[in-house]
C-alpha cells in the first residue's frame, strides 16, 4: 500500500484566518470565543460563540461568486487556497484526473436556509433567489473546490455531524493509500452561527452560556464555533519526487459506530475507533505522545472520552498528553476535526502542545494530563485526533512525523 503525507494546510476559524495565526493563538492559549454578533441575538439564551470576526468576503471573492457561495463555502475556498498554495501543486493533466476533494460538513449552507426561511415565513414573500439550492447544498463547497482547482477525480461530501471532517479526511487518506487518487483536498467546514443554527442547539440544553471548559469539574457544556480546515493529502512518492515540504504522514485511520444512542456517547465505541486507528497505523500505544481530544466540554463527552483513552492506552494513558482546543475556537461541528488537526501538526512539527484553556477544577473522572491552560513543550512522534459524533459515529486519525 502507498504512504500518504500532508503537504499543505489552510484554515479560517475564530482564532485567525490562516494557519500561522491559528498556531500562534493556540501556542498562547488565546480564547477566540466571545459575544455573538448576529441578527436577533436578544432572542437567544446562548449569546457566545467562536465566531469568525471581521470576515471580509468582498476582499476574497467577486460579487457573482458571493451570490453563489454560502459562508461555509467561502471558508472552505479560503482555507483550500492557503493549503494548495503551500503544497505547490498545480492540477493539470493526469494529476487533475486523479485528484479530488472530500470534505465534511454537518449542516452545509445553514445561513442560506436561515435567510430564505426568513424571506418566505417571516417576511411572507413568495419568491426566493434562484441560487438558494446550489448555495445551501452540502456538496457546494467540495464542488467549488473541484471547479476552482480543476480537480476532475473523485469528489464528494461527508456528513457525520461532529465527526464529518475526520470521516472525510479518513476517506481521503484511504483513497490515496489504495491508489484511487494521487492527491486529495480534504478537511471540512461549518458556518451555523445564525439564529436558526443556534436556536436548534439551544433545544438540546447542552450549551454553556459562559465558556467551554473541557475536562474541568465545573464544565457546563459546549460552545459553538465556525470555520474550516483544509489539507492536501498526497501520495508520499509523488510528494518526494517533486521535493515538496512534508508536514506529517497520515499513518492510520479507523471509524466505529456505537450502535447505541442518538446523542449519548459510548466509551466502548470510542475506544474501538482509537485502538483501530493505532492498529491501522501500526503504532504501539506508547508511540503516541499527544491526542487532540474531541473534548466538547459537555458532562457526557469528556468523561466518556477519558475512560476510552484510559482503557485503550492502559498505563501509557498517564504519560501521554491530551488536550481540547475547542475551548479556544469553539466546536466547529462538521469542520472541527480539521481545525483541530492543526494542533496535531503543531505538536509534531514545533514540539508545542496546545493547551486546554478554561480549565479550573480537576475532575476525577477526567484524570489525564489535559495540558491545563498553558501550552507545553514536548517532543512527540505520533499523535491521534479524536472525533465522536452525535449518532454514535466515531472517527480517529493518526499522524506521524516523517
Amino acid at each position, binding site marked *: 500500500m502507498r504512504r500518504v503525507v500532508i503537504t499543505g494546510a489552510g484554515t479560517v476559524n475564530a482564532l485567525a484566518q490562516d494557519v500561522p495565526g491559528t498556531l500562534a493563538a493556540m501556542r498562547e492559549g488565546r480564547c477566540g470565543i466571545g459575544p455573538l454578533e448576529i441578527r436577533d441575538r436578544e432572542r437567544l439564551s446562548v449569546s457566545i460563540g467562536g465566531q469568525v470576526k471581521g470576515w471580509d468576503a468582498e476582499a476574497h471573492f467577486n*460579487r*457573482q461568486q458571493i*451570490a*453563489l457561495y454560502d459562508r461555509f463555502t467561502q471558508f472552505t475556498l479560503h482555507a483550500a487556497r492557503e493549503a494548495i498554495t503551500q503544497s505547490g501543486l498545480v492540477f493539470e493533466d493526469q494529476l487533475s484526473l486523479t485528484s479530488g476533494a472530500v470534505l465534511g460538513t454537518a449542516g452545509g449552507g445553514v445561513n442560506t436556509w436561515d435567510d430564505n426561511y426568513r424571506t418566505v415565513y417571516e417576511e411572507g414573500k413568495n*419568491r426566493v*433567489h*434562484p*441560487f438558494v439550492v*446550489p448555495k445551501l447544498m452540502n456538496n457546494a463547497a467540495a464542488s467549488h473546490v473541484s471547479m476552482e482547482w480543476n480537480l476532475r477525480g473523485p469528489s464528494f461530501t461527508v456528513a457525520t455531524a461532529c465527526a464529518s471532517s475526520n470521516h472525510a479526511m479518513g476517506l481521503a487518506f484511504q483513497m490515496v493509500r489504495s491508489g484511487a487518487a494521487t492527491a486529495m483536498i480534504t478537511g471540512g467546514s461549518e458556518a451555523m452561527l445564525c439564529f436558526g443554527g443556534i436556536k436548534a442547539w439551544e433545544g438540546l440544553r447542552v450549551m454553556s452560556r459562559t465558556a467551554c471548559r473541557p475536562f474541568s469539574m465545573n464544565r457546563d457544556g459546549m460552545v459553538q464555533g465556525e470555520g474550516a480546515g483544509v489539507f492536501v493529502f498526497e501520495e508520499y512518492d509523488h510528494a518526494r519526487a517533486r521535493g515538496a515540504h512534508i508536514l506529517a504522514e497520515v499513518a492510520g485511520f479507523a471509524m466505529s459506530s456505537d450502535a447505541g444512542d442518538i446523542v449519548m456517547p459510548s466509551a466502548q465505541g470510542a475506544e474501538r475507533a482509537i485502538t483501530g486507528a493505532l492498529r491501522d497505523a501500526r503504532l504501539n500505544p506508547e508511540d503516541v505522545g499527544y491526542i487532540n481530544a474531541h473534548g466538547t466540554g459537555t458532562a457526557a463527552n469528556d468523561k466518556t472520552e477519558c475512560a476510552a483513552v484510559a482503557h485503550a492506552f492502559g498505563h501509557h494513558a498517564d504519560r501521554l498528553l491530551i488536550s481540547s482546543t475547542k475551548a479556544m475556537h469553539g466546536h466547529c461541528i462538521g469542520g472541527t476535526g480539521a481545525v483541530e488537526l492543526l494542533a496535531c501538526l503543531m505538536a509534531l512539527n514545533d514540539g508545542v502542545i496546545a493547551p486546554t484553556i478554561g480549565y479550573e477544577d480537576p475532575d476525577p473522572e477526567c484524570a489525564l494530563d489535559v495540558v491545563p491552560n498553558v501550552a507545553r513543550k514536548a517532543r512527540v512522534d505520533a499523535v491521534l485526533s479524536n472525533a465522536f459524533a452525535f449518532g454514535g459515529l466515531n472517527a480517529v486519525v493518526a499522524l506521524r512525523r516523517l
Partner: protein
Amino acid sequence: MTIKDRVIAIIAEQAVLDVADVTMDSTLESLGIDSLGLVESIFAIEEAFDVSVPFNANDPSQSDFDISSVASIIAAVEKLVAEQHA
C-alpha cells in the same frame, strides 16, 4: 426611470457591463450571461416590478416570455406590468 431603463440596468449589472454597452439588439449570449445569470436576471426583474415571469429554464423557447434579445425582454416586461395594472 422607465421600464426599459430599469431592465437594461438589471441586465447590465448581471453582465458586469456599463448600461451604455447594453443595446436593444444585444442577446444574453452576446452579453456573456449564462443560464444561471439568466435566472438571476429574471429573479431581479420579478423583484423590481413585482411581477411573476412565466419562464421555465427547462425549455426557454416554450415560455411565454421572449428572451431572444434585450428588446424582446423589455417588451415582455412591459406587457407583464401592463397586465398587472389592468
